[in-house]
């Protein structure tokens, strides 16, 4: 019996039991669509994370301390003493400040920084300018606003030159930042107001504490070495001997690795769920095929009597189960792509169409059909013609 005839036979048998065939495929449909969604989200997330961490700054590190206060001198000395340091900026943050302009207001994140901060993050302006040295040293109340803040409170007005009220303190807008987008966790990078750190300490926070210092080096190769050197320097400068972990330095590479680790873990978790549902789907197919074989014992006997060889019966049942899983796979792929598209649309991630993942999940679905269909098919093929014919 040639393959076309086998395929026709199998399709005819399946179409006799349409409802059952569809229900049997559901397990595979769910399994395959979750594989597609999982692979897609994993890739989108990774790309998003890489893009975002890229904007956080190349070869950058973040210095923070536990008890000891970081000082302006620390930041200055790091810049002076280490020739490999390209940029360094004090960072003072406050997560929720109220920004008012006319009758409109919004809640944003506040960053008190130095000009190096923008250079480090490669964060260009769409209009206006950064801070001047005089504005920095006199703690001038000037602000560079993020794209979201501009949209929220200025709408169509030109922000530069206007005064916004940040936590009841008037600041003059001198620049507008270009758009960075959202973080992996949905945080809006553009919902920020950036002011000179001195102004942040004095006008908004009300103390001289320095939260963190951002440092970037020229070359990737200098990172590890510089981390150690800065740690050593800070310990010496603050006369700390016992606890070498007083200053914590996180590099952008570490952040990237952490983000990758998170997205990989997420992918593996999803892969686990997906493979469980594919396995359950496969067991479903095996179950139905076993029922089908015993229901159709007589049919198998008839087929054998009119000349079906063992191989023909085996192939027929295998093709039936592979057709079930393969069709389930196709439907699952379509469903998965739709769900994946909707998710990327909702969270505004890049949609990555991968032919490889489609092919892999289709072949995997077929493999499930072969694996779980083999035993029932063998059972059918091993029937003795007389006994099968006599079966009631």
């Amino acid at each position, binding site marked *: *019996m*040639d393959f076309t*005839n086998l395929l*026709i*036979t199998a399709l*005819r048998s399946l179409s*006799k039991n349409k409802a059952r065939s569809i229900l049997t495929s559901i397990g595979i449909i769910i399994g395959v669509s979750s594989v597609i969604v999982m692979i897609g989200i994993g890739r989108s997330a990774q790309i998003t994370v890489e893009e975002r961490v890229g904007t956080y700054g190349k070869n950058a590190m973040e210095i923070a301390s536990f008890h000891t206060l970081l000082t302006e001198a620390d930041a200055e000395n790091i810049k002076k003493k280490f020739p490999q340091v390209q940029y360094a900026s004090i960072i003072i943050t406050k997560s929720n400040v109220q920004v008012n302009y006319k009758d409109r207001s919004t809640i944003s994140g506040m960053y008190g920084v130095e000009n190096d901060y923008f250079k480090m993050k490669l964060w260009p302006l769409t209009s206006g300018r950064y801070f001047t040295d005089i504005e920095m040293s006199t703690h001038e109340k000037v602000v560079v606003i993020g794209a979201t803040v501009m949209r929220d409170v200025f709408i169509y007005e030109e922000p530069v030159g206007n005064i916004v009220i940040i936590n009841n303190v008037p600041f003059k807008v001198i620049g507008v930042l270009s758009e960075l987008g959202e973080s992996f966790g949905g945080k809006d990078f553009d919902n920020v107001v950036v002011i000179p750190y001195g102004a942040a300490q004095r006008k908004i926070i009300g103390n001289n504490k320095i939260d963190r210092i951002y440092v970037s080096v020229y070359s990737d190769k200098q990172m590890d070495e510089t981390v150690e050197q800065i740690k050593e320097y800070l310990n010496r400068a603050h006369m700390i001997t016992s606890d070498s972990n007083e200053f914590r330095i996180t590099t952008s590479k570490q952040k990237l690795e952490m983000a990758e680790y998170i997205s990989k873990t997420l992918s593996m978790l999803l892969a686990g769920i997906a493979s469980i549902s594919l396995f359950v789907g496969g067991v479903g197919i095996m179950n139905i095929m076993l029922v089908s074989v015993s229901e159709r014992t*007589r*049919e198998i*006997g*008839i*087929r*054998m*009597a*009119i*000349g*079906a*060889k*063992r*191989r*023909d019966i085996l192939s027929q049942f295998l093709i039936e189960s592979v057709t079930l899983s393969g069709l389930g796979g196709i439907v699952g792929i379509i469903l998965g792509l739709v769900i994946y598209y909707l998710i990327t649309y909702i969270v505004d991630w890049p949609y990555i169409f991968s032919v490889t993942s489609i092919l892999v999940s289709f072949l995997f679905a077929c493999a499930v059909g072969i694996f779980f269909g083999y035993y029932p098919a063998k059972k059918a093929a091993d029937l003795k*013609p*007389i006994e099968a*014919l006599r079966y009631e």
Partner: protein
Amino acid sequence: MNIPIINIENLQKIYKISQEVSVHALKGVTLKVKRGEFVAIMGASGSGKSTFMNILGFLDTPTSGKYILDGIDGTSLNDNQKAEIRNRKIGFVFQGFNLLSRTPAIENVEMPLFYRGGFTHEEMKNRARKLLAMVGLSGREMHHPNELSGGEQQRVAIARALINDPAILLADEPTGNLDTKNTYEIMNVFTTLNKEYNITIIMVTHEPDVAAYADRKVVFKDGMIIDDSPIRKLKKSRK
């Protein structure tokens, strides 16, 4: 033409039920059937006629003895070869019709060609259509078995049995599930096939008036043939 299409010598079949108990179903059966003969096989249940038919139909293998069908030695074949012979040399007609349910008549009829292979879809359909016409079922091609009467179903089964031009037609109580009218119809089909198309028919029955359509009567008892005689043709008296 003188070479018998079926040549059976001293055929034995022993079913081993356990170490000690075995059933001697056939105790040395010898039978020759010529091409174009219509043989009725009779006997009480347990007489060995079913075992004999299974061996004739290559569904079962004899324990010992010789079986040659159309020049092929049937005693030393593997399962695949037996399947091929069932497909090419034997047409089966069963008591219970044994059609595939929910499958149109034409698909039932063409099925042996599927297993034979090498035919286009069109060739298979044409051949099946021709045979359905031969058994008087033109226009019923797309009917499913449950839409056909018992007699019509059996005619579909006959068309299926004949589609590969078999050497012999094996009919196992073909009228056992039919009423008088349908029995008469089916027996007429058999007679026509035998007389006009020269098809060799071996038919098991225990109804003497059905056996009367055959040319020769072979009676089994206790695993042996106890009577093998020609049937005198009384003219078809029944209408």
